[in-house]
Every structure is written in structure tokens, then in C-alpha cells.
């Protein structure tokens, strides 16, 4: 007996979409970016952003210690916190992705 997918919809559930398919427009409503990106692309963007933030934090910290002109007392601290928080966030997302992947791999089909 073929699985009646429409029957699932009747319960208010959506059929599962394969993970390898790129995220489609119209489904993802909370990003303003139109181009389709895979998880891999989005994740490497995130890594680059976090790396950039950490470099900025390094530079500003050095400036602060050297007593360079033009640095305010709060700049370096805020840069450090941003880098730290972004890194934490990235790690949390990575953790979730890995656990989701593991869950799926464990699923008996």
C-alpha cells in the first residue's frame, strides 16, 4: 500500500524534505537573502564572520594595550565580547546540526 502523503497533511504535518535539497524560496520566511545556500555555505560564511570578529578583537586589544591614539576604553571590550558571543553561537549551531544529523542517521528506515 502506497503511503498517502496527503493523509499526513490532514493531520497538519508537512512531508519531510530531503536535506540535500537547497532551501527553497518561500519556505524560509525569516531571511532577507534570496539566493539559495546550502548549510555548508551558510556555515562557512559564519566561520568567516566569526574569524573576522576575532581578528578585529585582537587588533583592538593590542591597540588598547599599546595605548594607541584613537581607541576608546570600550571599543576593545565590546569587540572581544562580540567575538566571544559569535563563537559561542556558531558552536551551538554546529552542535545542533551534528546532533540532528546523528539523529537522522540513527533513524531506522
Amino acid at each position, binding site marked *: 500500500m502506497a503511503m498517502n502523503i496527503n493523509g499526513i497533511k490532514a493531520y497538519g504535518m508537512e512531508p519531510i524534505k530531503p536535506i540535500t535539497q537547497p532551501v527553497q524560496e518561500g519556505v524560509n520566511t525569516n531571511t532577507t537573502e534570496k539566493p539559495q545556500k546550502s548549510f555548508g555555505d551558510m556555515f562557512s560564511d559564519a566561520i568567516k*564572520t566569526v574569524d573576522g*570578529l576575532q581578528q578585529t578583537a585582537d587588533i583592538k586589544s593590542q591597540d588598547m594595550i599599546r595605548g594607541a591614539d584613537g581607541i*576608546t576604553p570600550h571599543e576593545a571590550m565590546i569587540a572581544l565580547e*562580540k567575538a566571544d*558571543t559569535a563563537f559561542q553561537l556558531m558552536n*551551538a549551531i554546529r552542535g*545542533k546540526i551534528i546532533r540532528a544529523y546523528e539523529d537522522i542517521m540513527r533513524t531506522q528506515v
Partner: protein
Amino acid sequence: MKIDKLLDPSLAGIEKAMDLTWKRNQAITSNIANVETPQYRAVDYNFSTELDRAFNVSDPSNQIKQTSSKHMDLSSESGAHLMPDLSGATKPDGNNVDIDIQMGRLAYNSSKYIQAANLIRKKFQILSNAIRQVG
């Protein structure tokens, strides 16, 4: 998708407020140090509207405007210029610094800076806790 933009839109406003109050602090301290310098003219930065706008970023009614970075005028330094401070009377030696006004301003401005610092600290703490919960 930029992670730092995700984190908290109101952070940018508070950071800007700290930049502006720190800048103003330079004018105030120059005035105080030069209160007895003949011919010295008091100065100030005039950006109270910028400051209000920076703090109002966390006002819920402004949330809609934040989705486009063009709507927030925080990147422009339009209000942050040194201007003559005419709050004090000119003394016989040409100096016009009123020490009492400057000290009052010092107290007010520094309290704004410190408030902003505490706000930012709290926000980062909250973010950190939230991430730990989710992760």
C-alpha cells in the same frame, strides 16, 4: 547571514552612545582643565538628538525601522562636531568656562557612559545565557 547582526540590533545603538559620550567627555575635560587659561573658549559636542536616537534603538516601536540599515542614521557623524559652548559668561581675561556648569555636565555625561556600559554588559550576559540554553 551575518552572525553579529543576528545577535542583537540594539547593541549597535548602545555602542554608538558610548562613542558619543566618550567624545563629549573630551570636550568637558578640556574645558575643566582650561578654566583659568586666558582667551580659552569653552567647547562642546552637540549630539543630544543623536544620543537619544542611539538609545531609542531598543524602543519596540523602532524595531521595524531596524530591518534596513539605511534607516538608522547611526553610522553618520552628522551631529558630532565641536561647537562653541556659550553656556558660561566671558570673564575679563577672555575665558568663558563656567566651572560649575562643566562639573554638572561631567557628572551627567559620565553617568550616561556608565549606564551604557552596564547595559551592554547585561546584554552580552543575556545573549550568552540564551545561547547556552539553546545549545
